């Protein structure tokens, strides 16, 4: 059995989760507890991939990144870089569909923090970066971790947008969901079943671990929460 779909899926999910984590935490922190004109529009845009069919997301990405797309044609002409039908395309598709989960979790985590804690740190001479590093981030961590794990699971299972942007090229863009779909189409039910079991086990253990971890760690701050 060729295990490359497993390795590729994990590679794509890990890289996309890393990107989504940095981006989601940065934007959620930037937007947290600030009110400005257009905030709701930005936030709706961020969450849009959550409600759109993945094919629509894939279509949008093709328009942008396809060989004749706005960014895609420029990349191709200037740097001779092609994104569609590569594993990079799978990463981009994963980033876009899992970003809303990270953003939501991070925004909720930052919003629930007590402002006074940051203020207390500031009066004790802490810079904004130190406040973030020593107060905001560690206290928001349970929420951030939930977003991280959900994004990872979502990235692992991404199919629709990936199919449209990365296509199915065995050994190159065949993530597990892709392998399942094309195995069924080719009538290879055993192969499909194998991958179904693998991805279900992966997803289940991820969520199980998250639940276990958050129960254990939330108890530590429980009595301090208001």
């Amino acid at each position, binding site marked *: 059995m060729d295990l490359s779909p497993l390795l590729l899926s994990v590679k794509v999910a890990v890289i996309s989760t890393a990107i989504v984590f940095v981006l989601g935490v940065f934007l959620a922190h930037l937007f947290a507890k600030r009110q400005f004109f257009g905030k709701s529009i930005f936030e709706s845009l961020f969450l849009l991939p959550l409600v759109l069919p993945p094919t629509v997301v894939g279509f949008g990405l093709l328009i942008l990144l396809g060989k004749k797309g706005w960014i895609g044609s420029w990349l191709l002409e200037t740097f001779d870089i092609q994104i569609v039908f590569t594993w990079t395309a799978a990463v981009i598709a994963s980033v876009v569909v899992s970003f809303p989960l990270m953003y939501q979790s991070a925004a909720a985590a930052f919003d629930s923090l007590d402002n006074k804690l940051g*203020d207390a*740190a500031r009066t004790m*001479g802490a810079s904004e970066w130190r406040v973030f590093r020593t107060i905001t981030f560690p206290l928001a961590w349970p929420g951030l971790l939930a977003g991280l794990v959900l994004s990872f699971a979502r990235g692992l299972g991404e199919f629709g947008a990936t199919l449209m942007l990365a296509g199915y090229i065995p050994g190159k863009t065949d993530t597990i969901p892709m392998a399942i779909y094309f195995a069924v189409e080719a009538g290879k039910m055993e192969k499909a079943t194998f991958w179904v079991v693998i991805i279900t086990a992966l997803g289940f253990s991820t969520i199980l671990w998250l639940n276990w971890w958050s129960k254990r760690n939330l108890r530590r*701050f429980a*009595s301090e929460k208001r």
Partner: protein
Amino acid sequence: MLDVAIRKQLDHFELDVSFQAHDEIIVLAGSSGAGKTTILQAIAGLAEPDSGTITLNEKRFFDGKKNSLPARSRNIGYLFQEYALFPHMTVERNIHYGIHKQKTVATGFIIEQLLTVLGISHLLNKYPHQISGGEKQRVALARALAAEPDLLLLDEPLSALDEETREECQDELLRLHELWKIPFLIVTHSRSEAEKLGDRVLHLKKGLIVNESRGTMKEIPVH
């Protein structure tokens, strides 16, 4: 010396106060919503007044222009209502948070003294949720003073405590003030507390100082 003269539009009235404080205990008294906490926040740099000036020992915190001194550079101790102890840090790390990296012998001595006076040495390894309300209050006081501030602001420091603990803590505050000799600015809505703690009591109503009295019951406990 602290010199405050500020105006700030709040939801239902305009805050307009001016007062000075030497190395004494000034109590800002008044019912909730009179603008007491806003005054503390403006002095600490956590809220910006609309106009006016705030200076502490010749250091200009705010002069009505945009570039006011940020909270982190003001060297002020602030005891928050409900204390705002960092829940994920031990008492020891809470107290050391505001101390600069190059710890001197003097700093070590000051912390030792604080721990002794406040009787919290045995709590150093505990987390805030593992200690009582009175202990939290003492830890928060130690934390605010450990960075050797030039001014201490206290927002309803005793309101979360039961009667007996409150009296103990009032005595401790008076004793610490004797040792520290910096201006203490205490916000309270309790008349008896204002009279017991304050050298001067400023009575606030809808953003204005309507009356100033001297604390009548103040006596420093001997220990």
